[in-house]
């Protein structure tokens, strides 16, 4: 136990003295500060008078054979496309195309009938909604005209078209829109930290082995102390970094709350239920440990530093698989699908899968308890197994042994 303390202390100091580690942490905190203070800073530069920016709006051209139709389309489009300067043109198609390709106009609607048109645009962006807006507007014009034609006054027709529906939502479970963002951020943080620190542990073990410091270490300390000391040190360092980043984000947000003006996404990110932090901590710790042990054990079998990446690949893929399942389920809105349910009990995927389900859905407490129980048990088991592999692995030099050979060696040891 005393030895374990010494190793933990030594390894922790390595992180604290590591300039890259400290530098990256400070850099991230600074970036978060800049982002969080951004609305406050921009508000300093904004004067009270609103500037007329119509001149800068991109131009949208409208053309119709019938001048009356052209005027009506221009008026309704001007109301619908508030980010554009809608202008009527009577020039031919070649001119319009030229205007668009030269960048003078962003797009053009050439009407070929009351309900048909050609939309000219240079690069159709992924999020171009102009066509949909135009369709809706033209549909409304057609419907209003039809209603007027059948004897309604334009006011009546307008009322029918603009009827307002009132509704209330009473949520019994969780609002997936609201918690999507913070869950995403937390999962991503989990992903980054586990991958980064896991590889740091691997590097650390392999460096000791390749520099032959291991020859003295292995005769000075128990492999279990070495393994647990190293992994826990990196876990504490990772947690400290996370707390620094999330803590500063929370602090800076609260300092600038009024300037964010109730931005829904930002608000939802900082309205994480406290108990979720508890789950985050549990799943983070266990997930971190289980992967760090695996990374450490595998690195101990590698003789040359350049072989680490290939050696740890299977573990990285396993981890990536879990991450992918979670991200796809989150974006598709079905966090309780069968695959997610299975993954929330498999110890290598449960830290992310179960956490996501807890955050975005309603999971009975006993399911969470079982998942954490399996994960905790496996983590301890993997820890001791890793120490065994480590003891066998660090003394093997030469080409990296096959997994089967390691298992055999560990079995015999």
């Amino acid at each position, binding site marked *: 136990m005393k030895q374990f303390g010494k190793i933990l202390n030594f390894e922790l100091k390595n992180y604290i003295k590591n300039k890259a580690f400290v530098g990256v942490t400070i850099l991230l905190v600074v970036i978060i500060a800049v982002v969080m203070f951004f609305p406050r800073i921009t508000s300093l530069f904004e004067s009270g008078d609103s500037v007329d920016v119509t001149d800068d709006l991109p131009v949208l051209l409208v053309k119709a054979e019938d001048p009356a139709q052209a005027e009506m389309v221009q008026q309704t489009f001007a109301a619908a496309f508030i980010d554009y300067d809608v202008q009527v043109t009577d020039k031919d198609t070649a001119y319009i195309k030229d205007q668009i390709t030269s960048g003078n106009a962003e797009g053009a609607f050439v009407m070929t009938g009351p309900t048909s048109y050609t939309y000219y645009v240079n690069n159709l962006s992924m999020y171009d909604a102009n066509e949909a807006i135009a369709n809706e507007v033209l549909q409304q014009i057609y419907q209003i005209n039809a209603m007027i034609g059948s004897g309604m006054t334009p006011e009546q027709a307008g009322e029918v078209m603009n009827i307002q529906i009132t509704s209330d939502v009473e949520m019994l479970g969780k609002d997936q829109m609201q918690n999507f963002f913070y869950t995403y951020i937390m999962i991503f943080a989990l992903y980054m930290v586990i991958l980064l620190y896991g590889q740091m542990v691997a590097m650390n073990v392999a460096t000791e082995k390749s*520099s*032959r410091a291991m*020859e003295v270490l292995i005769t000075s300390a128990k492999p279990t102390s070495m393994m647990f000391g190293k992994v826990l040190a990196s876990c504490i360092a990772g947690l400290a970094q996370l707390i620094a980043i999330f803590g500063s984000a929370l602090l800076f947000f609260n300092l600038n709350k009024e300037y964010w003006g109730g931005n829904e996404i930002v608000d939802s990110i900082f309205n994480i239920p406290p108990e979720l932090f508890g789950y985050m901590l549990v799943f983070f710790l266990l997930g971190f440990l289980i992967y760090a042990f695996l990374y450490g054990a595998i690195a101990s079998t590698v003789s040359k530093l350049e072989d680490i990446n290939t050696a740890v690949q299977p573990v990285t893929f396993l981890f990536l698989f879990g991450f992918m399942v979670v991200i796809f389920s989150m974006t598709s809105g079905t966090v309780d699908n069968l695959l997610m349910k299975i993954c929330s009990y498999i110890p290598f995927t449960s830290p992310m899968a179960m956490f996501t389900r807890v955050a975005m859905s309603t999971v009975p407490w006993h399911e969470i308890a079982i998942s954490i129980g399996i994960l905790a048990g496996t983590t301890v088991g993997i820890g001791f197994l890793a120490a065994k592999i480590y003891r066998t692995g660090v003394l093997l030099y030469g080409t990296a042994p096959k997994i089967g050979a390691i298992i055999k060696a560990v079995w*015999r040891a």
Partner: protein
Amino acid sequence: MILELKNIEKSFGEKKVLTGVSFKAEGGKAFGLLGRNGAGKTTSIRILMDVFPANSGEVLMDGKPIDYRKVGIGYLPEERGLYPKKTIIDQLTYFAELKGMSHKAAIKSVDYWLERLGMMEYRNKRLDTLSKGNQQKIQLVTALAHDPDIVILDEPFSGLDPVNAMLLKDVVKEQISKGKIVLFSSHQMSYIEEFCDSIAILNAGKVALHGDLHDIKRDYPRDRLVVRTEYPEQIQTDFGASCKVMENGALLIQLSSPEEKKAVMTRLVEHYDIDEVKVFEPSLNDIFVEYAGDAAAEG
């Protein structure tokens, strides 16, 4: 203090590495563990240090199974290496603390050894800024700083210049005089011969020879004479086939029996102009080649 390995057997997978290895090393004396590459020296040392267990056999200290919590072991491995990017003082105290010392005691002891080995000026430097020989001296501190009862030195002299070799010799002698068990492993026979009172020669995982070096040498039949002379021709002619020229130019005369020794010596002194005549004792090198060479391995 007597350290004893008794009937140690060890296999890695299908490969048998040690077969019934037994030897004894006493406190206040140096013990030489010899053998060719792959003979099982490092494996024996690792079992002795409890890095991994033997398949069977015992490691005893004064007749009782060794208690690693009580018996301190210092080890200078053949494969040298520490943390290249760490300062000397940081890593040396770390290693001493791992061996059970308090932080204060570790610093005190490390400072003592740095001073003793003339390395004080590098105390706060990074290891990779030092020359190879100096790194080796730093590594020696990891083996000695925690004042162990057993000191295991694997090829301690390789890479040291004559001045540093002398310094190391003094340190080793001091450790021996403190009553510690000093276990040497080396291919440099001259050093083993200089320090070690007893040896064990391992060959293909078995102890081929074990015992007191003087006794071993004495046990060789005393039926050969070494003669140094300025005029070897006459002796060569007179003794014929039983007289050979050794590598160093001296003559080696084979007697038909050890009893003949006195008569032949008298004859040599009386009839020839000789500088020296003595009974031939094999060097450790000769013994090693005999017990660990290819011929021995095949036998």
